[in-house]
């Protein structure tokens, strides 16, 4: 395993130290492993907290800042944060208007956030939560863990964050977060596996001409293995999965997301195909992100996330944001 690290045990803390150096707009609590907006809490504003395993950078720490999150709690690599971190973050961003937890639907994330939320509630902090579960590669069922949360998390964090900046109530911010999630779907494809530093070897093996379809963001194997195909075809496989689950129409917010190891030019090639697909279905790629936003360490591949916009959601998407990884309007 070749990685730019010092010690597999200290990856998260040392990366946080680097973030603290690089981003004066953040306040990083190295002891509790929480990344705060320097100005947190904002009195009267709903606080937004997200978190999850590390290894998905810039998610979530890179989205802390004006117009998006107030704090992020990174767990160990691919491991949900512990309740202590979440409690620390929640209390630290409570400006009196309550705190929204944005939680990706993984058993670990859900359980740890729930535990934290209960304890915070006991201490008098009002907490609501939005569960993100956009990954159509996973069959949805009442009897399973349900769908994973992946790319839509960025949309939920951005749009709920923008609404919170307007002074909206906790209920309103939560409702809009849920609406974004409900209107979003994702599908991912891996060209290579990734290596968890503490594990030291790749989570799965792929042959020199194989890809994994329906990959998640934790280096977990996907649902099927297929031979490598042109970008055009892989993009269509992903978009077909999305469209089958949620017929595409109207203005769409589209993210073509690298998994950490994919050259940007390749993502643009995929994006061109995705945009063409949308147009074929009568939908429009009205807003877009192309790049590394929700990664799986050094994995190569891509995921595509589509959100069917409304005018309100478009306005909130366009609102100013100032975070390490997403910035416009200020």
């Amino acid at each position, binding site marked *: 395993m070749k990685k730019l690290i010092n010690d597999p045990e200290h990856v998260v803390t040392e990366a946080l130290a680097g973030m603290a150096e690089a981003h004066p707009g953040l306040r990083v609590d190295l002891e509790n492993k929480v990344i705060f907006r320097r100005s947190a809490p904002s009195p009267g504003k709903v606080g937004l907290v997200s978190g999850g395993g590390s290894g998905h950078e810039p998610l979530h720490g890179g989205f802390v800042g004006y117009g998006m999150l107030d704090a992020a709690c990174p767990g*160990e690599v691919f491991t949900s944060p512990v309740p202590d971190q979440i409690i620390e973050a929640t209390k630290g961003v409570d400006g009196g208007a309550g705190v929204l937890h944005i939680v990706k639907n993984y058993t670990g994330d859900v359980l740890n956030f729930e535990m934290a939320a209960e304890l915070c509630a006991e201490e008098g902090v009002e907490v609501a939560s939005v569960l993100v579960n956009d990954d159509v590669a996973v069959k949805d069922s009442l009897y*399973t863990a349900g769908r994973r949360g992946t790319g839509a998390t960025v949309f939920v964090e951005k749009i709920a964050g923008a609404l919170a900046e307007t002074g909206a109530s906790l209920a309103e911010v939560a409702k809009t977060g849920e609406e974004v999630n409900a209107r979003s779907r994702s599908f991912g494809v891996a060209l290579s596996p990734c290596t968890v530093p*503490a594990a030291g070897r790749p989570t799965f093996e792929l042959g020199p001409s194989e890809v994994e379809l329906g990959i998640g963001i934790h280096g*977990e*194997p996907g649902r099927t293995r297929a031979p490598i195909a042109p970008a055009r075809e892989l993009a269509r496989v992903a978009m077909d999965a999305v469209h089958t689950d949620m017929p595409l129409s109207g203005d769409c917010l589209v993210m073509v997301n690298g998994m950490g190891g994919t050259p940007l030019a390749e993502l643009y090639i995929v994006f061109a195909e995705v945009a063409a697909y949308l147009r074929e279905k009568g939908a429009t790629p009205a807003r877009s992100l192309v790049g590394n936003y929700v990664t799986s360490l050094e994995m190569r591949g891509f995921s595509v996330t589509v959100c069917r916009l409304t005018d309100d959601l478009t306005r909130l998407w366009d609102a100013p944001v100032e975070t390490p990884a997403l910035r416009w309007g200020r």
Partner: protein
Amino acid sequence: MDTRFFTTWIEGIAKAVAENREHLTALDAAIGDADHGANLDRGFTAVREALAAAPPDSPGKALTLTGTTLIRKVGGASGPLYGTAFRQMGSVLGSAPDVTPSDLATALEAAVAGVRKLGGATEGDKTLLDALAPAAGALRRAVQNGTKTEDALDAALTAAREGARATIPLQARKGRASYLGERSIGHEDPGAASTVLILAALRDAAGG
């Protein structure tokens, strides 16, 4: 069974988890995200430190401290689930200085109930419950039959082992392995495997 018995048990778990760290991670790599060994090792290392820093004066307190520490240090799915399991056992045992085999069976049943409630899984979902629930059941039956402690714990361990082995042909319905759908079939559940380590350490703590 006194406090010493329980701290021996927990020390035994810590040792077994450290020794089987790679194995648990490899199981998790096959149908999960390759962190189960690291997670539990981090957790039980912290548990060891916590027990050393504030030696508990009753079995119940030892278990509660273990559970709380797991919740605080592990993260992931297994942190809250195992944490709850141990906290439930601790709460059942209260501050009694001595624990009978029947108390222990009750405690394990409480652990099962806690995991079931928190995680929403039932047996057959291919989770640690598939090892933990049969173990609790076997212990209860052995105790009811008046089996001596070592043999009762043997029975619990055997039931856990069989339960874990039985997860292999199952398709996962809970946890991360469920995302693989049919591809989860043919692999042992990592949490069930770590539950076997916990039951084996329990058996070992009884000596004989």
